[in-house]
């Protein structure tokens, strides 16, 4: 009791602790609250939340590379693709039509780990030849890698069905599952449970568990010997080397560990969507994840998570809903003429807003970065850095 009170007092003013508490409680309450608020028709929103979890995982992973180790990675979606395709090939009928003529059906839980290790391996593979580069040069190489990987999967037709992608992926199964009113059902135990698309709560719970495990792991890493080595390399690579930090290994580990989360995320994404296609992993995905990390607060785990949740909800909830909202608003204030398209070029408010979507998205990003350049929930460090001006980057080019 006393320890609990002391714990509370110590963390009551710690923004990270508050963020974790809010996100934790929010995550637990979300499905039930949403179902209740929508009279049991909240499945779509719960499913959307589960999808946003994929981006939270990706942001956590990219934050390791960019935030902790200071390696600008513009091709992070490549690892996401590798994780997804790994699951796609190992858990579907896909490989029947491949040169090995044999379908592989590895259970989701094992494939999840395989996806993780394959993505980590790809991270190390990319890292090995490129980590002599620093700063902008590294960014360009990762950019290239991010472009190559989806094209590679598209062209490996014999294995990946090319542009059509891999479909009908296996879903995870469990021996039993507890259902209840939060999932819009009677309380009870379901045996031989299969994760299906019309039960988004199960997917939601799964992604929350994956995120929780990831957060614990990354937090431990952050406070470990390796976490300090990452920061040392970010601050001054030469000095870190002189202090006995093997900078090459340290950076390789940052790439590999960062990539492993996208392997996680990729397997989950593939299983939930039941489709993996090369179009899902373009440059825009890499940039979106990077924006999430920067917007949330680089180098701070809960910051990156909040950034991911916020950007995802703007991109996939508020912006798609905006045209209908605008039209309803026009109607309710008695300005129905706004909803009519007119011959002089006015397309009607809903179409107008629809066309403005990406301008609005851009303006929101610019606005947030102007108002809070350090990110929504910055690490203590980044906040200071920006207040005092970024230190010199003169060491960037010296190899």
């Amino acid at each position: 009791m006393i320890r609990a009170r002391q714990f509370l007092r110590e963390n009551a003013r710690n923004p990270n602790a508050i963020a974790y508490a809010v996100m934790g409680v929010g995550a637990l309450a979300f499905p039930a609250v949403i179902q209740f608020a929508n009279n049991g028709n909240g499945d779509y929103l719960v499913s959307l939340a589960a999808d946003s979890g994929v981006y939270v995982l990706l942001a956590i992973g990219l934050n390791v590379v960019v935030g902790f180790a200071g390696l600008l990675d513009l091709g992070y979606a490549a690892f996401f693709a590798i994780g997804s395709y790994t699951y796609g090939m190992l858990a579907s009928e896909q490989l029947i039509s491949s040169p090995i003529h044999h379908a592989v059906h590895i259970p989701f839980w094992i494939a999840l780990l395989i996806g993780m290790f394959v993505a980590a391996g790809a991270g190390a593979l990319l890292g090995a030849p490129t980590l002599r580069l620093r700063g902008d040069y590294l960014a360009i190489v990762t950019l290239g890698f991010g472009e190559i990987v989806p094209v590679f999967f598209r062209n490996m037709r014999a294995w990946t069905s090319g542009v059509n992608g891999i479909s009908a992926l296996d879903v995870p199964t469990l021996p039993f599952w507890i259902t209840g009113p939060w999932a819009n059902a009677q309380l009870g135990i379901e045996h031989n449970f299969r994760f299906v698309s019309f039960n988004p709560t199960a997917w939601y719970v799964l992604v929350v568990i994956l995120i929780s495990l990831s957060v614990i792991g990354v937090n431990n890493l952050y406070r470990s010997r390796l976490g300090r080595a990452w920061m040392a390399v970010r601050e001054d690579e030469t000095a870190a080397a002189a202090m006995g930090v093997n900078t090459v290994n340290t950076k390789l580990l940052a790439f590999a560990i960062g990539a492993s989360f996208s392997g996680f995320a990729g397997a989950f994404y593939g299983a939930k969507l039941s489709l993996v296609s090369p179009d899902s992993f373009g440059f825009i995905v890499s940039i979106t994840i990077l924006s999430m990390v920067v917007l949330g607060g680089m180098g701070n785990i809960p910051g990156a998570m909040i950034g991911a949740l916020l950007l995802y909800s703007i991109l996939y909830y508020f912006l798609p809903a905006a045209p209908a909202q605008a039209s309803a608003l026009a109607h309710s204030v008695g300005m129905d003429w706004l909803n009519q398209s007119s011959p002089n070029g006015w397309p009607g408010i809903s179409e107008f807003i629809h066309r403005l979507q990406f301008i609005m998205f851009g303006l929101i990003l610019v606005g947030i970065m102007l108002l809070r350049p350090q990110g929504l929930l910055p690490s203590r460090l980044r906040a200071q850095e920006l207040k005092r001006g970024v230190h010199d980057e003169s060491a960037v080019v010296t190899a």
Partner: protein
Amino acid sequence: MSAQVEPPILSLQGVIKRFGGLTAVDQVSFDVPKGQVFALIGPNGAGKTTLFNCITGMHIPTAGRVVFENRDIAGTKPYRTAQLGIARTFQNIRLFEYMSALDNVKVGEHVRMKAKLWDAIFRTPFARREEREVSERAMEYLRFVGIERHADNYARNLAYGQQRRLEIARALATEPHLLLLDEPAAGFTPQEKVELMALVDKIISRGITVFLIEHDMKVVMEVSQRIVVLDHGEKIAEGPPTEVRNNPRVIEAYLGKSA
């Protein structure tokens, strides 16, 4: 002073470093005896820091041998030389600016830590215990150089003199046998120089050999037992302070030829 029966801790044998057509270090040979303060002096651009870089592996010598504890380490990677027991500070302070003073020292201890990736991810009891020990030891190093009050401050927020001390603490945390100090007294007040000399004495009494580059003749003469003088990359003199001070070539290098 103990008789020199022990082999030198560091021995340079005909070290050459060329950058393109420029010869920064030319055929330099000398021995650094164990357990003493050894100084390297010379006018600006004489190649002193280049020589340090050759010893710590930041440069690969074009030719010659760098023998540290009976092992040729020329061309070894910097992190390996740190593991072997050579630590250094930098002429223009290179701390991890946005890490606390304590964390800076902990990075120095990195090389002596044993926690593996597995331990780090799962925060095993071993990792916890090691982290605790490392924190305690890091505090001791801060106390040793006298800046323990600033343990939680960012390195960049420390005063100049404290930053120099922190760099020494960080270097000591790697548990070196040989400590290279690159102009440790640069920009110091006379009072700070006296304190620095006391600190060097304390380091020596821990059994660590100190090899320093310094411009301040008063500091060099007082603190070091043996001096090597470099000019235009060449060794022009070597010996105890009194001898070097009166060497005509040294005077010429510093003050120019008398007309």
